[in-house]
């Protein structure tokens, strides 16, 4: 069985982000980019599944401009067997990504698709659910544990939800370090380049970013002297009642 893992190249989580002066988005020029942390966890899980003998190959895929290849190389250095880069514009919304993933799945025919819960740049948490819908595949989201049963051909996913079960381990796994021998081996692993046309996916932007602004600066709290004053502020200033 092959496992496909979708990874996204995002602004590194440790960088302090700035909005572009024309308010069209976040500043990314000369900013450090890395693999989305949740994608790292997804890839680690795929590698562990392969190492336990349930899969023969882990394929890392990424959509975006040429620099995505760098993130794919990191994935290869962690242990993915090969990679596919779909050449696409930098701003891709979840539905477009889901459509491209569906096309890739139809080409590569993996038995399992693993994605990070959300990307830390747009926080959408939509792609996984959308691609499952498009493929009409069963999905398990917010996985805190994934157990595969070869005999029964079943995967059991423990899900972490807000009011639900707390597991002793707070996360699915700890992504491995890419050691130097693996970094060097990764240089000779294959990264196949594909385009949306090849995959027969129409890249139509169904959404438009109108404006990106910083959240309003937090103001200091105010101590009110009476209930009347409280009601007045809630009604006329905060507009919540």
């Amino acid at each position, binding site marked *: 069985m092959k496992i496909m893992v979708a990874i996204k190249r995002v602004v590194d989580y440790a960088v302090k982000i700035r909005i572009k002066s024309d308010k069209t988005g976040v500043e990314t020029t000369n900013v450090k980019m890395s693999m989305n942390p949740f994608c790292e966890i997804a890839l680690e899980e795929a590698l562990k599944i392969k190492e336990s003998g349930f899969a023969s190959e882990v394929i890392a895929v990424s959509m975006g401009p040429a620099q995505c290849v760098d993130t794919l190389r*990191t994935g290869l250095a962690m242990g993915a067997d090969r990679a596919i880069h779909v050449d696409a514009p930098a701003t891709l919304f979840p539905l477009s990504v889901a459509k491209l993933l569906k096309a890739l799945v139809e080409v590569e025919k993996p038995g399992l698709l693993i994605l990070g819960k959300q990307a830390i740049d747009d926080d959408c948490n939509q792609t996984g*659910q959308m691609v499952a819908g498009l493929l009409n595949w069963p999905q398990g989201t917010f996985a805190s544990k994934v157990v595969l049963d070869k005999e029964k051909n079943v995967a059991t*996913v423990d899900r972490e939800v807000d009011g639900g079960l707390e597991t002793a381990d707070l996360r699915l796994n700890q992504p491995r370090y890419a050691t130097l021998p693996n970094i060097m081996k990764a240089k000779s692993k294959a990264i196949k380049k594909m385009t949306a046309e090849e995959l027969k996916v129409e890249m139509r932007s169904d959404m438009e970013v109108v404006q990106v602004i910083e959240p309003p600066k937090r103001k200091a709290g105010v101590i009110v002297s009476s209930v009347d004053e409280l009601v007045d502020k809630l009604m006329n200033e905060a507009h919540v009642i």
Partner: protein
Amino acid sequence: MMQRLAVAVAVARQRVGASLPQRTPAAFFSTSMLFDETQIKFKEGVQQFAQDQIAPHADKIDKMDSFPEDVNLWKLMGDFNLHGLTAPAEYGGLDVGYLYHCLAMEEISRASASVGLSYGVHSNVCLSQLVRHGNATQKDKYLRKLISGEHVGALSISEPGAGSDAVGIKCKAERVDGGYVLNGNKMWCSNGGIADTLVVYAKTDVNARSKGITAFIVEKGTPGFNAAQKLDKLGMRGSGTYELVFENCFVPKENILGEEGKGVYIMMSGLDLERLVLAAGPIGIMQACLDVALPYVRQREQFGRPIGEFQLMQGKIADMYASLQSSRSYVYSVARDCDNGKVISKDCAGVILVAAENATQVALQAIQCLGGNGYMNEYPTGRYLRDAKLYEIAAGTSEIRRMLMGRELFKDQ
């Protein structure tokens, strides 16, 4: 066929507050002009490893003056393939060269300069000598475990009466049946008391100066060889520095490194590359200083503003940054030259001269940036200063480095 599944993986969130992978955000400086893609990936990998596995112990290592007991840092570094960066693949090394070795040294020292020093002595000062001058039997016997981290290495030249005047050592090696008997005292030996394998320099001809020196491989536990005391140091605490005593210590003749009487060449050739790799240590310390000073001046407010907005503070961090980047460029350029076979003594001495003196100054400025807090042992800046100072002394004092460089410059046409 496995039932098809699309899984979205998540980090379970703690009730108290979400936390992504526990990594210390570190200042990212554009060093793309110095390294290629693979080298940058390696540097980031070692940085991650060092911040996760070594940095959390750094403060305790300094306060307890010893490595942690609950975790074997030597083995961890060995598992990450860090010891054999300049050792041959047939013994488990990666043989990727000195630039990689400097990268590892920098990032380990950034996490803990003490661990960095011990690592540098083990993986370069001791290991490299065995790689370059050991015969096949010796390499077979000693290299593998040193590279895996199962064994620790050390090298001993200095004596109480011979520091800068390395050639003036007096430890005697008398020829006897089957080998040599060593008698004498050694001083300031890093890793000396914990090392399994030591390269020791002694005089087979006490009356000769440089021509009487022979290098030996001594094993821990050899009768007559003892680590007399662990020295109480200002900085680099945790990286054990020892006084060694040899009392009628028999070393078999198979354990001569190189040839009798030719030890000085081994000693001197080692020093160039030792200075290069160790020079990455103060680079790591300077980076650590900025890792602490920059967030501090951004957050600390006085007179209603972050102190980083005041010009004098901006001047300070600018100077620190420029010192770091210029030292770093020098070190890695020379590392690249050495990898290409061009080992130039005056540059190998130059890089550690510059990096070490800059590191002391940058550490002083880091303390100053933190003001009163910088003076508190609760903050790491004091340790950075105490650690940095060592690099102006070990591997040839700044004075010796200047003398060497000046002499070479005078000779050059």
